[in-house]
């Protein structure tokens, strides 16, 4: 048995010895270096560009400007291609843009023999702009007379959708309801994977090869081809080890430009690596959102009806666009079960800001912050018990979603909360922290967390797996699903070992995806991989097992159905007798003069299901009121992601998510100069990514309800841990001080005035 064990990662040895090869480690010497020129205005048009001086710099090979690139608008979101036109992503950018839409837009590219020449050339290019007033917030962008960024989107509204369950207007007529309102805001933040965005491209046999640090190799192939106007098969994408992604690389970033640049210099090897500074403004960010919530509640805490408006800041280009806002809106439908009605509308609005795309948990951290902060505001106002309030309103056991067909099979929320309460000492500390005085106070708060697993039925869910038995009985496996640091390769290997009946050590997974040789897959996003790839692995392993046992029939003169493979041996099912080792069988199959056979299997599974992933966070904080400082004393996340494939890796995944959610709540935000639209903190010094000193102990616990819809009982865990800590911390600060702060991060700059207004200072 391999599933459920904390086996070491398959890539751990290579990673602790420095042998694991990432994109930049693979590139041959002598590559040409490409660098991108970014605009120094936030909104306008490039009127003229003078590259004469720059072109004369020794070492400069070629300069391509926004006037040179083909007029092919393309979309970058890492979604599976949608056959239906109305579901396709918005194609609103060019390889280089004449129409400038953010401070830092891509307007030219230099190809040079080395980095120094490329950088010097960037500085020597003279640009003439026609400048328009910029808009940084959705409100400003939607205002009358605001500059329109994209021609087909009046008022800069990329999309506006709404839904209503029940009849809101009549629901709120019920007598005795208490109306509670609140506005909640979340910041624009960045993924900050430690490996920089990087790719290199060259031509081989008339095709363009792009080696890239991407989460989505097959999707990248399609987008590169679309952007260059080439048949998809003319592109080959290779994905080596990846230094983190978190959704930023679930977007096609500079791969199309890189491919184009190589094409423009006759297919020579061109490397395009961003700096950390560029990564902040020129890749993707998490949507900043603003929620206005109005709830109608009975005095006992039962929510009768809720209304919400979401404003989502898209930035300059559509990327994942309104899909993210839609997912935020789904939280309102799923987390709390309003008794009579709910009414929600969401706007995704273009602004002159960095483009927002996918970032770990895709709109849900924003929505959970709003919904769970608002829940606590109701609780405080009506003097309710936070746990009881949630039990009264949360998604009930047995709930069946008519759209996704998801079922809430178990009492996961209560089971998770129970563990969280016990660990943190909820009841004692709620009592202990009542009626505090003085400048330093403690508090305790919590938040629920909700997520899906994968993207069905919004998008395609498919995974393919290829397996072959080596001549020594070991297994070679390939999948289109990618290792991006989360440990997918290890979990996949455990699954394969489990179903095929071989030892974990005998599973050799090929980590690198190469679209020329790797079976089709969609990649790492949506907390989908262990769930969706699980089907493909199980199905393929069963096909392969059948082939092996069929071969064993010839050798053993026993029926295939009476035999099994256990720990790498062919055994008799009835009594476990070992008939021969799989190694012996494999050698025979490979070289038999009578009946040689290459034992392989390959299959694709299209998954048409989804699964809820539930959890919660409990935080205990100490607030220094005069300093406006919050210190986390203790924090726990509890998740029900079904059966754990590898408990140690699952725990590590939760740690990382908690860390990101803590940063979201307490420190991280991208700050802009209102006058120019320029990002002020585009580096890891001024952007406050937490260090070890900023982290408390991160407690991760699980509830393991075997997910009935899943091949191995597992469901989403990649993103969920990054959801609930920010709101739990905010609620703990409220508990400590009585002050409800509705905008994160809770920095001293924000807390000090809030405490002052509340009369605490």
């Amino acid at each position, binding site marked *: 048995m391999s599933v459920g064990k904390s086996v070491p990662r398959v890539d751990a040895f290579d990673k*602790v*010895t*420095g042998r694991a090869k990432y994109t930049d480690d693979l590139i041959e010497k002598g590559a040409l270096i490409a660098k991108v020129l970014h605009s120094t205005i936030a909104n306008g048009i490039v009127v003229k560009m003078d590259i004469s001086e720059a072109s004369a710099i020794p070492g400069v090979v070629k300069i391509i400007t926004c006037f040179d690139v083909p007029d092919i608008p393309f979309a970058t979101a890492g979604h599976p291609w949608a056959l239906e036109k109305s579901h396709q992503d918005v194609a609103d950018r060019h390889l280089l843009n004449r129409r400038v839409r953010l401070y830092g837009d891509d307007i030219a590219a230099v190809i040079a023999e080395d980095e*120094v020449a490329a950088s010097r050339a960037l500085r020597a290019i003279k640009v003439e702009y026609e400048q328009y007033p910029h808009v940084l917030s959705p409100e400003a962008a939607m205002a009358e007379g605001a500059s329109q960024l994209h021609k087909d989107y009046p008022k800069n509204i990329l999309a506006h959708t709404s839904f209503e369950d029940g009849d809101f207007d009549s629901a709120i007529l019920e007598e005795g309801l208490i109306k509670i309102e609140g506005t909640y805001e979340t910041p624009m933040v960045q993924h*900050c994977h*430690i490996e920089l965005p990087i790719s290199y491209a060259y031509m081989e046999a008339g095709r363009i090869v792009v080696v890239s640090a991407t989460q989505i190799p097959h999707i990248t192939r399609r987008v590169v081809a679309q952007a260059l106007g080439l048949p998809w098969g003319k592109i080959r994408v290779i994905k080596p080890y990846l230094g*983190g992604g978190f959704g930023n690389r679930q977007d096609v970033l500079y791969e199309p430009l890189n491919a184009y640049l190589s094409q423009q210099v006759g297919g020579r090897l061109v490397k395009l690596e961003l700096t950390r500074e560029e990564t902040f403004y020129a890749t993707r960010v998490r949507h900043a959102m603003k929620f206005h919530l109005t709830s109608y509640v009975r005095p006992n805490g039962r929510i009768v009806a809720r209304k919400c408006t979401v404003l989502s800041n898209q930035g300059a280009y559509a990327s994942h666009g309104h899909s993210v806002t839609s997912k935020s809106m789904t939280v309102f439908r799923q987390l709390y079960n309003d008794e009579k009605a709910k009414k929600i509308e969401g706007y995704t609005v273009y602004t002159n800001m960095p483009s927002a795309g996918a970032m770990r948990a895709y709109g849900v951290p924003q929505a959970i912050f709003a919904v769970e902060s608002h829940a606590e505001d109701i609780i405080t106002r009506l003097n309710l018990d936070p746990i009881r309030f949630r039990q009264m309103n949360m998604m009930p056991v047995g709930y069946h979603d008519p759209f996704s067909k998801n079922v809430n099979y178990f009492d996961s929320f209560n089971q998770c909360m129970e563990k969280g309460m016990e660990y943190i000492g909820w009841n004692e500390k709620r009592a202990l922290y009542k009626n505090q005085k003085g400048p330093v106070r403690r508090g305790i708060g919590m938040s629920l967390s909700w997520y899906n697993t994968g993207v069905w039925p919004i998008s395609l869910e498919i995974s393919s797996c290829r397996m072959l038995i080596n001549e020594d009985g070991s297994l070679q496996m390939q999948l289109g699903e990618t290792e991006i*640091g*989360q440990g997918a390769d290890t979990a996949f290997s455990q699954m394969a070992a489990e179903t095929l009946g071989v030892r974990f050590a005998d599973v050799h997974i090929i980590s690198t995806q190469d679209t020329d040789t790797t079976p089709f897959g969609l990649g790492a996003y949506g907390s989908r991989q262990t769930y969706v790839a699980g089907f493909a692995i199980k199905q393929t392993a069963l096909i392969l097992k059948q082939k092996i046992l069929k071969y064993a029939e010839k050798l053993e003169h026993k029926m295939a159905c009476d035999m099994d493979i256990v720990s790498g041996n062919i055994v008799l099912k009835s009594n476990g007798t070992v008939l021969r080792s799989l190694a012996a069988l494999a050698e025979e199959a490979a070289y038999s003069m009578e009946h040689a056979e290459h034992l392989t299997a390959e299959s694709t599974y299209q998954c048409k299901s989804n699964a809820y992933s539930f959890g919660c966070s409990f935080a205990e904080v100490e607030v220094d009121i005069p300093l406006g400082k919050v210190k986390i004393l203790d924090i726990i996340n509890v998740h029900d992601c079904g059966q754990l494939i590898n408990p140690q890796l699952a725990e590590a995944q939760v740690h*990382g998510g908690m860390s990101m959610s803590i940063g979201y709540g307490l420190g991280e935000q991208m700050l802009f100069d209102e006058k120019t639209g320029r990002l002020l903190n585009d580096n890891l010094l001024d952007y406050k990514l937490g260090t070890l000193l900023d982290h408390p102990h991160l407690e991760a616990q699980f509830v393991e309800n075997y997910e009935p819809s899943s091949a191995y009982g597992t469901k989403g865990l990649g993103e969920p841990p990054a959801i609930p800590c920010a709101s739990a911390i905010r609620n703990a600060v409220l508990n400590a001080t009585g002050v409800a702060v509705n905008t994160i991060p809770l920095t001293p700059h924000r807390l000090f005035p809030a405490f002052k207004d509340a009369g605490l200072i």
Partner: protein
Amino acid sequence: MQKQLVRCTINGKETETYVDVRASLTDMLRNEYKLTSVKKGCEVGECGACTVIIDGECYNSCIYLAIWADGKNIRTLESLLGPNGELSDIQQAFIDEGAVQCGFCTPGFIMTALEILESGREYTREELRKQLAGHLCRCTGYENIYKAVEKTLKKRKAQSANK
């Protein structure tokens, strides 16, 4: 382009090469010596991924000029593996404690851990956390990295006490 000869010891081996006077030590180690455990995450000394040990002390090699390495003794992660491919205790601890995810910050962290382990001194929890705070990691929340270093420290202490 002005080049200068840099003679130094890298991972126990005496080396010499001409480098661009503007090149960083990261560039020299990666490009001239293919020591690709030395990672680039920011190139301005913020993230710690490029950490190497120079004459016994940790440095961000991205903000250390290659020409300054002349006459120095430099160690990178590649030096830790034993002659028969044995992992060092700290590398094994990173595996055992689940401290590795994407692996990009791992080499730098291990080098700082090594400096701590070889210092021979004792650290309080806070001191140890501070020593490791020069590295950024986005995957792990540092939980298991801290555990790996702390456990190895304790293990080494116990070993030396037994001697």
